[in-house]
C-alpha cells in the first residue's frame, strides 16, 4: 500500500485525456480534477464521452493519450492498489442476478477485502433501506431495488473515490431523492470524493459542487451549476443542457471556459 495522498492534492487528476476509436475521438483532450470531499458532476448529452471517461478512470479502457492520476498515483501503473480504495456504480452494469443479495455483497466485500464484512453488509443495506431484501434473489429485484443494491456494492469498501454513472436513471422521484440524500450523506460522513454523471439536472443542481460540461468529447465549461447557468445566459441548467445537446453535429461556438475566466 502507498501512503495516503495529502489532503490538498487532487483525488483524481485527468490530464489531456484522449480516447480515439479509429478516426472518432470519444474523449478529446479532456483535463479536470476532483478535489477531496468534492462531488463533481460530469454532464453531457448521450455520446458526449462521460461513460468513456469513467471507463478509463476504472482502468477498463486505456486512454489513447493523456494520464489519469488517482490518490497521487498513475492509474496505468498502480491500477489494483488504486481500485482497492475506490468503487463505482453504473446503471449500465448488473450484479449477478442468479445469486442472493447477501451472496453478491459477500463476494464483492471479499474482492475489496472489507474488514468485518457481515456488519458492513448490514450497514450498507440499512443505509439504502433495503435490509429486508438480504435473502432475496438479485435478479428478482425491481429496477429501484437493483440500483440501490448496486450502490450498496459501491459503498462496501468505504471508497475514498466513488464513481457514480447515472445512479438515479430509471428511479421514481421518491427513490431518486433517497439516493441523492445517501450520496450527500456519504460525502459528509466519509469525506469521499464523488464523480457523478446524470441526465437529471435536478440531481446535478442539488448535490454537485462543480460540474464539468462535456460536449462531443471535449470540456465545454467547468464551474458550479450556477456559474454554468450564468455563463450560458439561460435560466436553468436543464436549458443549458438542451441548448448544448441541440447544437448537434455543428461545432458548439462556446469556448472551453473555466469559472473565473469571465
Amino acid at each position: 500500500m502507498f501512503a495516503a495522498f495529502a489532503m490538498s492534492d487532487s483525488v483524481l487528476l485527468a490530464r489531456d485525456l484522449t480516447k480515439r476509436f479509429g478516426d472518432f475521438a470519444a474523449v478529446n483532450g479532456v483535463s479536470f480534477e476532483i478535489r477531496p470531499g468534492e462531488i463533481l458532476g460530469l454532464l453531457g448529452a448521450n455520446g458526449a464521452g462521460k461513460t468513456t471517461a469513467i471507463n478509463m478512470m476504472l482502468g477498463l479502457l486505456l486512454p489513447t493519450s493523456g494520464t489519469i492520476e488517482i490518490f497521487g498515483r498513475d492509474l496505468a501503473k498502480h491500477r489494483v492498489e488504486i481500485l482497492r480504495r475506490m468503487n463505482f456504480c453504473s446503471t449500465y452494469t448488473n450484479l449477478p442476478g442468479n445469486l442472493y443479495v447477501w451472496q453478491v455483497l459477500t463476494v464483492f466485500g471479499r474482492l475489496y477485502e472489507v474488514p468485518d464484512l457481515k456488519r458492513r453488509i448490514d450497514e450498507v443495506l440499512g443505509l439504502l433501506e433495503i435490509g429486508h431484501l438480504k435473502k432475496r434473489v438479485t435478479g428478482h429485484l425491481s429496477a429501484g431495488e437493483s440500483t440501490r443494491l448496486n450502490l450498496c456494492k459501491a459503498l462496501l469498501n468505504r471508497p475514498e473515490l466513488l464513481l457514480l454513472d447515472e445512479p438515479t436513471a430509471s428511479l421514481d422521484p421518491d427513490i431518486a431523492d433517497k439516493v441523492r440524500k445517501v450520496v450527500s450523506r456519504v460525502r459528509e460522513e466519509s469525506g469521499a470524493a464523488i464523480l457523478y454523471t446524470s441526465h437529471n439536472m435536478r440531481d446535478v443542481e442539488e448535490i454537485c459542487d462543480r460540474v464539468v460540461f462535456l460536449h462531443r468529447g471535449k470540456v465545454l465549461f467547468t464551474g458550479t451549476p450556477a456559474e454554468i447557468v450564468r455563463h450560458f445566459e439561460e435560466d436553468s441548467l436543464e436549458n443549458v443542457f438542451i441548448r448544448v445537446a441541440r447544437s448537434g453535429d455543428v461545432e458548439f461556438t462556446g469556448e472551453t471556459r473555466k469559472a473565473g475566466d469571465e
Partner: protein
Amino acid sequence: MNFRVIQALVMRYLYLYTRAPVRGIELVFWPMVNLLVWGYLTQYLQKNMAGDFPGQITYLIGAVILWDVLFRAQQGVAIFFLEDVWTRNLLNVFAAPVTTRDYLAATYTIGLLRALVTTTLLGVLSWVLYSFNVFSLHGYLLPFALNLLVFGWALGMISTALIVRWGPAAETLAWAVPFFIQPFAAVFFPMSELPAVFRAFSMALPCSYVFEGMREVLRSGSVSTRDLLLATGLNLVYLAAAGVLFVRVMRTARRKGLLTKFATQ
C-alpha cells in the same frame, strides 16, 4: 497472488450451485452419457467379436474418464468468464482490484474442482458397471491427470481469449475448442491410425502422449518416461503461450473497449 481475492472469485462461482443445485446436472449428465454409451458399446462388441477385443474395453473407459479431466478443466476457465458475461457483471469484476493472475488462478481452481467431481463420479461408475478400476493406471494416474488438467487450463485460456477478441457471437468456442482437437488427440485410437499430416498435428498436442501412455499402461503396466516428459514439456509451452495470448488479448480489449462492449451487448 492474493488468495482472498481468488477465494472470493471461486466463492462467487460455487454460490451458483447452492442457489440452483440443478446446475450440477450439467457436471454429471454428459460424462455419464459418454461412459454408458462407450462402455456398453464395447461390452457388446466384446461379446460378439473374437480376437484381442476384450482388452479394448478398458482403453475406451479410461479414455472417457481422462478426456473428461481435460474437458472439465477447459470448461472451468471458459465458463467462468462467460458466467459474468451472461449476468452482465463483467465490468464489476474487471473494475474491482483483481489482477489477471488472481483471475486466472480462480478459473484454474474451478477447472480443478469440476474435473475432480466428474472424475470421481466416472471412476466410481466405471468400477460398478464395468469393473474398471481407475487405479489400475497405478502411479501414472496422477501425472496423466495433471497433464490433462494443465492442457485443459491452456485451452480454456485460449477459448476465453478468442471470445474476448471476437465478442459474444464467438461464445460457442467455449464448448467447441476441445472438440476441435479431439480427433487428433489420440483419445480413442492411437496416433499411428492418423494420416501423416494429422499425425504431425497429434504429436504437437501434449494430451496425445497421455492417451497413448494410458493405453500402454493398461497393456504392459508401464509407460515411456520420455513420452511423459514430452507431454509435460509441451504442456508448459502451451500454458505459457496461452497465458501470453490471454494477457495480450485483455490488453487489446482494454485498448479497443471490448470489455465495455460485452457489458452493453
